């Protein structure tokens, strides 16, 4: 049994949610709690397995392009004639993402407990979504990667479109179209890469090893980059995000910001970096500029928002800019900071969206100006929100500080001027975070909400793990940094050596 689990752990993590989805479909639609519990169980098991993965992961193995450096590999022929394999494995780049995904999904199920409309469909789609997301992070075959990448789109489209807010239809289709534009370009690159490799292969490690066969490198790079940039989202491809976030139900916003956005940067690291290291290297400035724009622009836009959720959405754009900037620095510090920022932002933004959901459930609106003095009414809620916002503004001692500091540190080496500009982002971020807190929580109590109930047990259960992570990783980031250090080191070396 343990042997089996160990050998197929990634497959289990990926497909157990799908199995859960099938089980959910079999439950009668009026037994809502049974559906919710089933979904919770089927997201908790992958979390457990992810824990095992974490425990069993060998942090010293670093090969990024070699199959030997990848762990928990499973490889089966899928379509033999096309040399498409079911090839999954983890390395230091993907394991933090898998952990993040496994952690956030059960919390989202908890946060979706109050959904009453179409419970069955919702949970089925959510579990399908989890499979898609996990798949993206474990897949090492380009084709498989693409399939998972696209498989996420459909449940996401429906989850936003059916369970979303007033403009859900617009938001859902906008999300869909945007992402599709990016992915079709990626598809062309995938096919091209397959056709020029000898023997034809979709194996990412193989392609990375023989990346010199690829021609039209700059075009390929842009094709991939735009696809991923839309997902990140990088300026100017970001406008789907505020809409999607605002309209999506709480749990879906959490997944969207917490995990989906990371796929963009993950893709750039996994594919652009390893397949086209030389172009990546030459695009350093471009990437850094885009990252810096994201940081500043996102923060400024966040400041102007009146809707709490939109504010958090724009803050995500800003924070993802750090990831980009860190990646573009081509230093160990920057790269590790970038990936750590992916993880940390996942945690923090998940918290923020959950918190927005909490207040929305009670007050049925999200106007920042419409609250006031909530700290006196709901102290526990205020405490957690303060923690989350302070994490978001990069307070030392909390997790985001470490990643942002590492990113800026890295960027100072290679893009000093941009790094200085980006660093001013911390001021703007502080400003909008504090203004928001002030308007919502401080000041005189808004009598309309004088009797707002504080956090419930279920909400605390969904927030507490994240809150603990925010603090623990701020003080002791070692476990996560250790996971990725060697992999990212070799990845960075690959890129740096490319030019």
């Amino acid at each position, binding site marked *: 049994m343990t042997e089996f689990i160990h050998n197929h752990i990634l497959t289990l993590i990926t497909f157990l949610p799908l199995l859960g989805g099938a089980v959910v479909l079999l439950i009668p639609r009026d037994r809502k709690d049974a559906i919710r519990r089933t979904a919770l169980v089927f997201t908790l098991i992958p979390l457990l397995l992810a824990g095992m993965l974490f425990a069993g992961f060998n942090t010293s193995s670093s090969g990024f392009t070699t199959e030997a450096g990848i762990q928990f590999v499973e490889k089966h022929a899928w379509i033999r004639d096309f040399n498409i394999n079911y090839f999954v494995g983890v390395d230091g780049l993907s394991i933090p993402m898998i952990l993040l995904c496994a952690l956030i999904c059960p919390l989202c199920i908890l946060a979706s407990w109050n959904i009453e409309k179409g419970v069955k469909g919702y949970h089925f789609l959510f579990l399908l979504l989890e499979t898609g997301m996990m798949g993206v992070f474990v897949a090492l075959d380009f084709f498989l990667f693409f399939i998972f990448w696209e498989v996420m789109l459909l449940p996401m*489209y*429906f989850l936003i479109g*059916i369970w979303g807010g007033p403009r859900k239809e617009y938001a859902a289709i906008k999300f869909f179209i945007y992402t*599709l534009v990016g992915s079709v370009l990626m598809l062309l690159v995938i096919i091209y890469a397959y*056709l020029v490799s000898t023997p034809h292969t979709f194996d990412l490690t193989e392609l990375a090893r023989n990346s010199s066969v690829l021609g039209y490198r700059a075009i390929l790079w842009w094709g991939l980059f735009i696809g991923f940039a839309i997902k990140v989202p990088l300026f100017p491809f970001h406008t789907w995000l505020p809409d999607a976030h605002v309209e999506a139900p709480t749990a879906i916003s959490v997944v969207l910001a917490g995990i989906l956005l990371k796929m963009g940067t993950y893709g750039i690291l996994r594919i652009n970096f390893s397949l086209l290291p030389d172009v990546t290297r030459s695009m350093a400035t471009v990437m850094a500029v885009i990252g810096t724009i994201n940081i500043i622009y996102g923060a400024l836009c966040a400041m102007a928002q009146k809707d709490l959720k939109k504010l958090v959405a724009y803050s995500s754009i800003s924070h993802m800019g750090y990831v980009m900037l860190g990646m573009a620095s081509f230093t160990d510090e920057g790269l590790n900071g970038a990936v750590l920022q992916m993880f940390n932002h996942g945690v923090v933004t998940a918290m923020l969206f959950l918190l927005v959901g909490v207040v929305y459930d009670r007050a049925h609106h999200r106007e920042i100006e419409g609250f006031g003095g909530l700290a006196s009414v709901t102290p526990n809620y205020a405490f957690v929100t303060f923690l989350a916002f302070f994490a978001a503004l990069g307070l030392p001692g909390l997790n985001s500080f470490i990643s942002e500091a590492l990113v800026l540190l890295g960027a100072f080496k290679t893009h000093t001027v941009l790094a200085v500009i980006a660093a001013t982002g911390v001021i703007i971020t502080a400003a909008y975070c504090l203004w928001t807190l002030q308007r919502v929580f401080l000041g005189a109590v808004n009598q309309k909400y004088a009797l707002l109930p504080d956090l419930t047990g279920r909400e605390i259960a969904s927030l507490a793990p994240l809150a603990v992570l925010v603090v623990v990783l701020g003080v002791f980031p070692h476990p996560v940094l250790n996971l990725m250090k060697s992999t990212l080191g070799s990845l960075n070396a690959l890129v740096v050596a490319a030019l």
Partner: protein
Amino acid sequence: MNNLESLTYFASEGFLSVYIILLLAASLLIRKEQGTPGLYYSLGIFGLAVTLALEIVACATRPGSTEIFHGLLRSDSLGRLFKILCLVSGILFLLFSLLARETSKRFRDSMEYTVLALSLCLGMMLFIASNNILMLYLGMELLSFTSYLLTGFVDRDERTTEAAVKYLLYGAVASGVMIYGFSLLYGLTGSLDFSAIRAYLVANQVSGSMLFISIAFILTGLGFKIAAFPFHLWSPDVYEGAPTAFSAFLSVGPKAAGFAILMRVLYQVFGVGAQAEAPPAAQFDWTFTIAVLSALTMTVGNLAALPQRNIKRLLAYSSIAHAGYALMAVASRSAFGISAVFFYFAVYLLMNLAAFLVAIVIANEYYTERLDGYEGLGWKGPQGAFLASAMAIALFSLAGIPPFAGFIGKVYLLMAVIKKGPGLYWLAVVAVLNTVISLFYYARVVKMMFLSKRVKGAPLSAMTTERYVSYAVLGVLTFLTLLFGLYWTPLDSLSKLTMNFLN
């Protein structure tokens, strides 16, 4: 090969011909009051099923490429596989006709309808297998004439006759232009036989411009059959006016047949670059022409589909766009391109017919072909959810979203194009951008069904036998759409067989 020997290669067509005559004779014996439409349709389905079985057997037992009836017809795997495809769509056509209210309830002359359908299938088979200008012309006209009649057969409203007349006039002009083009080709080469024409073109120098003109005229006829730009204008009108079951069939069967013969003409007569002997392509390279047509066809189809509010019309434009996609592989001028086209049509059959079947069920239930009829379908109980899910899968598959078969089909086409080399990369880009455009209108239907909170119209009525059959068929089609999206090796090996017609 002489006529007697040829008959062994002609078993399926032969059977079908005899069966049609028998059926005609039987119609004289069966009094009209005695027969139900179900009976006639079943007889027709049976006949086509036997034909299909014979064709499959032939496909399995007679590999290789042979000219039969003194070179009038050709028996090869390309033809056989496309014939199988067309027969499957023919069977589903009759089944759909049985399931659709308009062709099964009010319709008394179902025997003639069935006979026409079978004749159409015969014409399609001859068309696909033709190896001679005359045979091609005859097959095409048999196919066309029966199509005109079937389009106008059920008098639903003024649109039916109008569609039939338009179809007829447009088709007649197109085939006239085509035969004029063939006459020029005959004049240039002095032969009707494809092999002979090719041999002549390889051996002799002919005027490139004249050759181009004749090809352009020939393409007019074939383009009319596959509804490619600028020969597509008839199809939305006809699809809308014709019985839904027939529209469904038109979008798959005759179109696949048209592609088969298009490839036969372009590859076999005007040469494949990959072949060793100096191709007539030296005189005229049609790759770019087809590529441009492909790009225009898919773009026009998708753009015009955007504002549509009638499901049949929408699917008609979508079908034009898909012809454009498939043309892309034809333009790739490679053996792989041929198999890609076959693969594409195999999955296109599944997903497109699934979409049409849902349209039929909805039309039966709500008497509407407009998109508003689909509003809130996903929330109308288990039946509605099933129908809407099947429709969504079909549409997303048509849009080329994984993990559905349509995506794999598109990958094949793109692969064929990219394999061809940098010259056609632009076409691949155009194609993927078109995919994005197409999502707009496919997703709009999905949006209507699921995202709209308003549940319009009554809930679906109780289950009937027809409904069970519809759902079963729909289930199979949807399942296969999903299956081939995840594991398409069987279909892949089948499609590889098409390549050997070149040897």
